[in-house]
């Protein structure tokens, strides 16, 4: 009996039966069981085995040494599952010389629960058949069964029960074969759900279960697919779901599914009964859905098996509830058997898995088939040997029938290579790729007409189940149309002329084979009609029969309305629309809509339709339609780009442009920059102009220049600015406030710039940006001539409106900025004013001029003005003199700054005009001394006249050389700043005037003492002399004495009169009101009278008074006798006063023809030259006082003289020269001859 002798014969029979069934199930040719022995594998059937193809005289036995590697791994437990191979045992040496053919084999481990297999089960396929992966599952189940049978058989080997057990085993075997029958069942015509129903039904029969159910995975849930009980199929009103979760509380079914899914790699079987099951159910508190369809009150046992596909993907669960006993009652303490029901269950789930997978694959396959069949692109499948197995209709259309021919025949024989070589090259490329897919390989193919067609081919290797290469599948893309379309599309996009676009489209469209004409109908929105546009026809002289048709008219109207393209094989058979025979003989026709889809909004704009006609039936293919649709897309884009599609579109853009600008001109934080940017954006990006620039006007500098641009050369933006008065076009527009439209060079354009930036290529519009009549700048925009040759009036009107909108915003923004600046300025000015006001109090409280000036200058410095000069008016000398300088540079020129009040100089001019003046550039100011400007490096200055009421006090010059920004900046700003200074200057003027008046009063006060003395002395002398005279008359009557008394009294009266006259002239007010009476007379009489009046006085000091003869020769002139007498008396009085004792004073006269000159000289103290001028100013008595002699005087005498002489139109001067000592009383005193010279005009000119 051999090595398998431990197996009972009946067991062997059982095994033989199992194996038989398994053979049938797996569609195998043979099967054999090999038991593992110590040294070899023994065949179940021993030497008489004829099962395997390799069977020999020795049966299938194989020694371990000869076992293939993989099988020994299997026997060692290293590989757990069975596998498919190709005649693994061919190499068995025991096979002897028997020639073996290659067959597919399945090697399945023979094992129960232990890891180590007892042997192997070998299945061998028919010659033409191969095993599949799913067969392994079945085979494994069988193997499992065999193992169980062997085990049982061992257990019952010598038992009495053997027989009964065998009977039982037979019954089981029956079940197994039932199950295998199900696996085998074709169920071909049944739907998937019918198949599933069948399997579930059978499962309940086979497993003897009270109820069976099938649940499929639906997302995160388990959904009840079908269930069967003894009563038949259970029906359910609604879908029953149970969430797949590890919480039994949510549903026991879902929990079981979760457990099974989790353990699916380790079989994933759920098999529980009795107490164990009850415990679990207790946890699941919620109502367990299955309970509803289990007729019994409770479930006593449950068996669930996961449905897994090859990749262990979890499809669902097959449930069996309540194992029944022989009487059909549920077993309460016993459930489904691990060693029998479970394998059966697995076989059944395998069938379900296969059905589900097949269904899914079939579904996919059907779709693929549909795609492949319907695509116009050629698809070719070739076998490994290169023969073409399959071609789709698209392939037939291009290549003709090539089935069974070599794939190399598809390719166009290029120069130097054959089609076969191309095929080989493609194969090579294919192998090189990682995933063995070659994409978009472009090569010429050979069409059925023998033409070379550019095709981009994608090829992929096909494999059989065993991973062997089966052939290739290639999908081609005909590049002819695409290339043509792309070219057309490109050329269309370049066009801006609608008619041209339409013409080109029809030209291309008529290229379809068999077409006789193509034309386009465009939808006219206003008229709501379809207008015939471009027509391309093969019928000579054919024209559109009508101009337009109603919108829903005929096939084109239908397509336009529905937006669905129609390819009609025969227009006369169509029922959806009525076909009108506008053109004769049309049979087949394609109409596709031209529709623009806005990418951003997704909005569709129906533009029209393209139609292609043919006079033969069914002339066009789907690819023709596809081609035309693509063309229509290009057309739509081209038309849209042309920007002329409809007024609606333009309107939308216009609105958008306005909206863009509007947005930028509203809101809190207005910004001119942003408005300009928005304007540029609106003009270029939205309205579609080629470029745009903005020029701004600089009001202060009176310039205009480009500040911003879009789509222009940066260098252009940097070009220099133009004067607003220049002929420059921007300046022109800004001046004329009217837009300009330029198509070529113009005399207002700079030739150089015009050529540099190729402006001849442009059409340009320049639009002024005006806000409330003020030109803020200009907007220039335009097209390139080749894009668009002109700017329409409507466009210019739009631009103007845009600009107006922007201008309002700019103005507001400017106002806002100005307001902000104003507030800042006002604050700073207020601060300055506060500081100055405070200072003014100090200034006004100043008691001395110098003190006041110090305060003034300190205040100026405190508000940032460090340089300048304060000049004061010298009324008596009719000039204005730089008295006080602020800053070193001004100190340099201070002493030299002396200007005639009547002269043509800046300070006098400012005083005369009584308004301040800004001298921006002193070097260019004719009125300002350039030498002084250079010396003090003064560039700019501001001169403020200082007045108190109508009285000019002086000028305040503020040096602004360090503030060019202020000087050349905003005029209003400057004025505001200077206003502060002006206010300050007027306060300073008051202060200075006050100080000066105080000074005058002080001086007058001190002089009053002297004046009093001057009056008192002659009066006292008169009274004294009169007393003496009376006494003499009383006692002696001495004639001589009486004469002397009388003379002295007369003299003293005269002296007193002079004092009165002088004091009248002391005050300015009385001086101005004095009237002069000019009478002709001789000067000598006056001179002699005056000299006589001093005779005795002079004699008292031994001074001789000499009137020279020249005086007596002077001619008569017109003069005021009293005034001249007063002047001369003053001079003689002076001369006597300052003469040394015992000297002489002389008076000389000249007549030089024009002038009468009188010179009065004394010999005495003398006057230093530096005082020659000041002595005439009043209160300025010569500092060279007689150190030992009191010289009375008010210090006003010379001032009065000067005034009197000048009133006569004459002049007064003084000289003082040393003379030799004639009287050496004191050695160290030098005698000076001091001469006062008066010159009076011989012919006085009357003052107007």
């Amino acid at each position: 009996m051999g090595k398998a002798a431990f197996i009972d014969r009946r067991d062997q029979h059982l095994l033989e039966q199992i194996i038989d069934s398994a053979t049938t199930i797996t569609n195998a040719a043979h099967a054999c069981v090999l038991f593992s022995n110590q040294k070899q594998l023994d065949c179940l059937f021993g030497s008489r085995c004829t099962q395997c193809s390799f069977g020999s005289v020795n049966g299938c036995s194989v020694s371990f040494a000869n076992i293939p590697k993989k099988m020994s791994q299997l026997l060692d437990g290293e590989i757990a599952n069975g596998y498919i191979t190709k005649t693994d045992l061919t190499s068995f040496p025991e096979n002897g010389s028997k020639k073996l053919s290659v067959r597919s084999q399945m090697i399945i481990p023979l094992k129960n629960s232990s890891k180590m297999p007892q042997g192997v089960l070998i299945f061998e396929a028919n010659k033409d058949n191969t095993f599949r992966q799913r067969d392994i599952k079945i085979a494994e189940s069988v193997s499992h069964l065999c193992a169980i049978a062997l085990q049982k058989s061992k257990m019952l080997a010598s038992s009495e029960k053997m027989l009964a057990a065998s009977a039982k085993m037979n019954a089981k075997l029956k079940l197994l074969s039932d199950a295998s029958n199900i696996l085998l069942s074709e169920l071909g015509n049944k739907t998937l759900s019918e198949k599933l129903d069948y399997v579930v039904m059978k499962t309940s029969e086979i497993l003897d279960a009270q109820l069976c159910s099938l649940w499929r995975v639906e997302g995160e849930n388990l959904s009840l697919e079908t269930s069967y009980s003894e009563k038949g199929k259970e029906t359910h009103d609604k879908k029953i779901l149970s969430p797949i979760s590890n919480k039994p509380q949510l549903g026991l079914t879902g929990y079981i599914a979760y457990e099974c899914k989790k353990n699916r790699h380790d079989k994933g079987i759920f098999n529980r009964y009795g107490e164990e099951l009850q415990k679990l159910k207790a946890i699941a508190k919620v109502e367990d859905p299955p309970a509803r369809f289990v007729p019994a009150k409770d479930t006593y046992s449950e068996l669930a098996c996961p449905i897994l596909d090859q990749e262990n993907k979890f499809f669902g669960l097959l449930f069996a509830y309540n194992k029944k006993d022989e009487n059909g009652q549920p077993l309460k303490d016993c459930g489904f058997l691990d060693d029998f029901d479970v394998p059966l269950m697995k076989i059944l789930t395998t069938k379900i898995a296969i059905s589900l997978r097949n269904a899914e694959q079939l579904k996919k396959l059907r779709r693929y088939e549909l795609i492949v069949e319907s695509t116009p692109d050629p698809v070719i499948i070739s076998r490994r040997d290169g023969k073409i197995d399959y071609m789709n209709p698209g392939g037939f259309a291009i290549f003709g029938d090539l089935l069974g021919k070599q794939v190399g025949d598809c390719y166009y024989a290029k120069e130097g290579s054959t089609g076969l070589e191309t095929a080989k090259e493609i194969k090579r490329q294919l192998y090189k790729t990682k995933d063995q897919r070659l994409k978009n390989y472009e090569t010429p193919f050979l069409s059925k007409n023998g033409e070379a067609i550019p095709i981009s081919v994608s090829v992929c290797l096909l494999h059989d189940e065993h991973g062997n290469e089966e052939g290739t599948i290639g999908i081609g893309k005909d590049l002819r149309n695409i290339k043509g379309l792309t070219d057309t599309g490109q050329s269309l996009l370049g066009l801006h002329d609608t008619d041209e676009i339409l013409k080109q489209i029809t030209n291309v469209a008529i290229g379809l084979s068999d077409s006789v004409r193509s034309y386009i109908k465009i939808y006219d929105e206003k008229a709501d009609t379809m207008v015939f546009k471009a027509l391309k026809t093969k019928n000579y002289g054919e024209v559109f029969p009508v101009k337009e048709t109603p919108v829903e008219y005929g096939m084109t109207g239908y397509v336009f309305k529905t937006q669905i393209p129609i390819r009609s094989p025969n227009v006369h058979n169509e029922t959806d629309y009525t076909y009108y025979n506008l053109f004769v003989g049309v049979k087949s026709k394609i109409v596709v809509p031209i529709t623009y889809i806005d990418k951003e909004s997704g909005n569709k704009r129906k533009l029209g339709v393209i139609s292609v006609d043919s006079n033969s039936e069914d002339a066009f293919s789907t690819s023709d339609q596809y081609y035309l649709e693509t063309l229509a897309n290009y057309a739509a884009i081209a038309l849209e780009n042309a920007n002329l599609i409809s007024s609606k579109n333009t309107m939308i853009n216009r609105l958008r442009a306005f909206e863009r600008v509007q947005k930028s001109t509203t809101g809190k934080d207005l910004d001119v920059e942003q408005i300009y940017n928005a304007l540029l954006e609106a003009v270029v990006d939205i309205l579609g102009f080629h470029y745009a620039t903005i020029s701004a006007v600089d009001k202060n500098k009176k310039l205009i220049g480009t500040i911003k641009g879009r789509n222009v050369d940066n260098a252009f933006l940097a070009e220099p600015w133009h004067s607003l008065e220049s002929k420059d076009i921007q300046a022109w527009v800004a001046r004329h406030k009217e837009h300009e439209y330029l198509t070529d060079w113009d005399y207002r354009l700079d030739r150089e710039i015009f050529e540099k930036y190729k402006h001849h290529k442009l059409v340009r519009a320049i639009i002024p940006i005006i806000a409330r009549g003020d030109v803020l700048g200009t907007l220039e925009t335009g097209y390139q001539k080749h894009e668009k040759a002109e700017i329409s009036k409507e466009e210019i009107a739009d631009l103007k409106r845009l600009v107006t909108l922007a201008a309002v915003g700019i103005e507001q923004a400017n106002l806002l900025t100005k307001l902000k600046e104003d507030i800042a300025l006002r604050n700073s000015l207020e601060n300055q004013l506060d500081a100055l006001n405070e200072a003014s109090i100090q200034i006004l409280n100043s008691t001395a001029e110098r003190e006041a000036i110090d305060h003034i200058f300190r205040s100026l410095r405190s508000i940032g003005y460090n340089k300048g000069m304060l000049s004061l008016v010298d009324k008596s000398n009719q000039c204005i003199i730089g008295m006080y300088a602020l800053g070193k540079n001004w100190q340099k020129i201070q002493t030299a700054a002396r200007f005639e009040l009547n002269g043509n100089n800046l300070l006098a001019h400012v005083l005369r005009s009584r308004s301040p003046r800004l001298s921006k550039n002193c070097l260019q100011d004719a009125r300002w001394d350039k030498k002084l400007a250079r010396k003090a490096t003064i560039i700019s200055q501001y001169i403020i006249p200082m007045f108190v009421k109508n009285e000019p006090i002086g000028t305040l010059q503020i040096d602004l050389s360090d503030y060019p920004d202020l000087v050349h900046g905003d005029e209003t700003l400057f004025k505001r700043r200077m206003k502060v200074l002006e206010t300050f200057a007027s306060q300073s003027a008051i202060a200075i005037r006050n100080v000066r008046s105080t000074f005058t009063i002080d001086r007058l006060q001190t002089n009053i003492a002297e004046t009093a003395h001057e009056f008192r002395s002659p009066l006292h002398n008169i009274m004294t002399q009169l007393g003496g005279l009376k006494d003499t008359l009383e006692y002696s009557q001495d004639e001589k004495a009486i004469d002397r008394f009388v003379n002295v009294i007369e003299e003293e009266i005269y002296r007193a009169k002079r004092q009165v006259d002088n004091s009248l002239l002391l005050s300015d007010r009385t001086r101005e009101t004095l009237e002069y009476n000019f009478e002709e007379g001789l000067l000598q009489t006056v001179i002699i009278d005056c000299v006589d009046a001093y005779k005795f006085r002079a004699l008292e000091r031994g001074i001789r008074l000499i009137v020279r003869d020249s005086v007596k020769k002077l001619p008569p002139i017109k003069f005021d006798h009293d005034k001249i007498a007063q002047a001369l008396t003053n001079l003689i009085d002076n001369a006597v006063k300052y003469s040394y004792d015992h000297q002489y004073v002389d008076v000389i006269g000249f007549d030089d023809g024009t002038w009468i000159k009188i010179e009065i000289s004394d010999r005495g103290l003398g006057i230093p030259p530096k005082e020659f001028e000041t002595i005439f100013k009043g209160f300025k008595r010569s500092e060279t006082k007689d150190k030992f002699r009191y010289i009375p005087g008010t210090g006003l005498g010379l001032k009065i003289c000067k005034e009197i002489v000048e009133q006569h139109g004459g002049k007064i001067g003084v000289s003082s020269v040393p003379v030799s000592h004639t009287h050496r009383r004191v050695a160290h005193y030098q005698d000076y001859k001091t001469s006062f010279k008066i010159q009076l005009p011989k012919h006085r000119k009357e003052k107007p």
Partner: protein
Amino acid sequence: MTKLLFVEDEPRGVDAYFPVLSRNDFQCDLAKSFDEAVEKLQTGQYDGLSLDIMFMSRRSGQKSGNPQSAGLDLLKLIRRGKIHNCDPMLKVIVLTASGNNEIKSKVTALGIHAYLTKPVGYKRVMDTYLALK
């Protein structure tokens, strides 16, 4: 016989008094300048002094005097005994045209017989001088 020295730079302001004073047993002398006055006072023969305030100051010496107050300076010298042979308690009548109150108070403080401000009547002057006797 009472000897009087008149210090006055304008002789016509005082010379008319001389004949009357002579008749009343006065001997009158005139000094027109500071130096001249000092010179004459050093003789020590005077019983009284008629002093003007504003007149020629002294010409010699270290300090140059102020003509505005030459009389005051001279009086100071007398009262301080700085003038040789001159009685510091010499009777002094001030006769001046100066209206300067400051000087007047200073002069008065030094002790004087009378302060007469020009113009002053003939009779009043005479009464003042005659009272010196």
